[in-house]
């Protein structure tokens, strides 16, 4: 909690000790998550990197986790806050299972629960510094939604976080279709991830793709994309740019 100890010229001076109780900046962060709905369900992709500022420090972080039987959560932003969210969801799914009554939490319920959590934390000026992507299939219905650290929440046919919004979504807006098959969907996601790999400096070349269908949720083994660095634009990036060297 923050305590105000003085009021000077209308500004409040906050107690430094109290500030250590709330999130001010992220430390270990994950970069983009990209997800699309396809014919049989939902696909989600993210890399396995955890950056410590500008250092690519951790290279084996799973940023996508299955929740219950029907959903998958992907997160970018502060990794420790993502782990905290997983603990909340663990308790939620545990209690849901303990009812043992044939009812289960679907992706819509999990998404709305997370929206409430994120928004309430934002209201206390102590956010969970993440952008979350929640996807899943239940009773034949495909679901894909997003929640930001300030509690902005919505559903769409394709979503992305962070740099993915700027680099991946334009590709998806042009090339996404309702009836994408599994291979086509994976290729589309890989195209987005490759652009992110070239252009986002916190991206690493080790990614996972997760598949959500009526049968269940699976996360692939990590693999890397083939890249090509001999493009003229890469070999001589400043050619044609006035004043560059």
């Amino acid at each position, binding site marked *: 909690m923050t305590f105000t100890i003085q009021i000077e010229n209308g500004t409040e001076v906050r107690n430094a000790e109290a500030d250590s109780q709330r999130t001010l900046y992220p430390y270990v962060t994950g970069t983009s998550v990209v997800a699309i709905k396809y014919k049989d369900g939902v696909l989600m992709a993210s890399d396995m990197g955890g950056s410590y500022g500008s250092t690519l420090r951790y290279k084996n972080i799973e940023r996508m986790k299955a929740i219950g039987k029907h959903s998958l959560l992907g997160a970018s932003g502060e990794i420790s806050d993502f782990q905290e969210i997983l603990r909340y969801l663990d308790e939620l799914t545990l209690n849901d299972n303990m*009812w043992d*009554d*044939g*009812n*289960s*939490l*679907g992706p*819509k*319920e999990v998404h*709305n*629960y997370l929206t*409430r959590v994120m928004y309430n934390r934002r209201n206390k000026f102590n956010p969970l510094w993440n952008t979350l992507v929640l996807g899943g299939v239940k009773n034949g219905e495909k679901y894909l939604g997003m929640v930001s650290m300030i509690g902005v929440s919505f559903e769409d046919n394709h979503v992305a976080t962070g740099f993915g919004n700027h680099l991946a979504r334009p590709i998806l807006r042009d090339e996404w279709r309702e009836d994408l098959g599994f291979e086509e969907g994976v290729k589309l996601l890989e195209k987005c991830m490759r652009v992110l790999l070239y252009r986002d400096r916190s991206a690493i070349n080790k990614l996972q793709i997760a598949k959500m269908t009526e049968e269940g949720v699976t996360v692939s083994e990590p693999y890397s994309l083939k890249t090509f660095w001999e493009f003229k634009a890469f070999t001589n990036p400043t050619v044609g740019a006035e004043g560059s060297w």
Partner: protein
Amino acid sequence: MFRNQYDTDVTTWSPTGRLFQVEYAMEAVKQGSAAIGLRSRSHVVLACVNKAQSELSSHQRKIFKVDDHIGVAIAGLTADGRVLSRYMRSESINHSFTYESPLPVGRLVVHLADKAQVCTQRSWKRPYGVGLLVGGLDESGAHLYYNCPSGNYFEYQAFAIGSRSQAAKTYLERRFESFGDSSREDLIKDAILAVRETLQGETLKSSLCTVAILGVDEPFHFLDQEAIQKVIDTFEKVPEEEEGDEAGEGEAEAAAVAPAEQGGAGAGDQDVAPMEM
């Protein structure tokens, strides 16, 4: 049940292992006017007998909407019933707000039962004096539950509570096996016929009963008087000679003119305390 030295506190056991205060609370349910519930795979119908204090007053409301997919009918201390209905509405709306999904009725009745149990184990409380017939939907379809002042709850295909409910139960016992696949209209008809059983001779009019229905594609709502009267007209016009599938009623009516089962509410109802409806 007669007065004895173990029935003053709810927290006193009798030597035979009974909590008399809890049992007395269940008596209060039997004194209230009848409430009936039945369900098919996709719908639940709740019906009750309208009882007014006097000719001058209006009748008390005994059926409450808890949510679009859950309704409750009460018998016993209506005031207790209203408080519990408010609790159910609160639980339901909080769940909807957090998960944007309807609260499964099976989970609501457990919360309700646990709340009732607390009152059976605190010396400074008393049990709720109301029985609740909770009808609602969850992922596995339509359900009907009965919540008791004791904190127990049971699931039913069809049930009746309150005064003269035994007559309705007898009728339902004969017919319940077909309810699962009943159409919506047949279910309503069976509910009104069950209400008629509790009236024992009094002519059934739409002003005497309230009927509410909810279903898989139908949010909870009350049937209006005209709709109820229409259903009554299909069988009340020819009370002695009935169609093939209602032949059973003729025999049942004769058999159902049996002496009153539960104590208290006789023909005059002067023994019913004013707070119980």
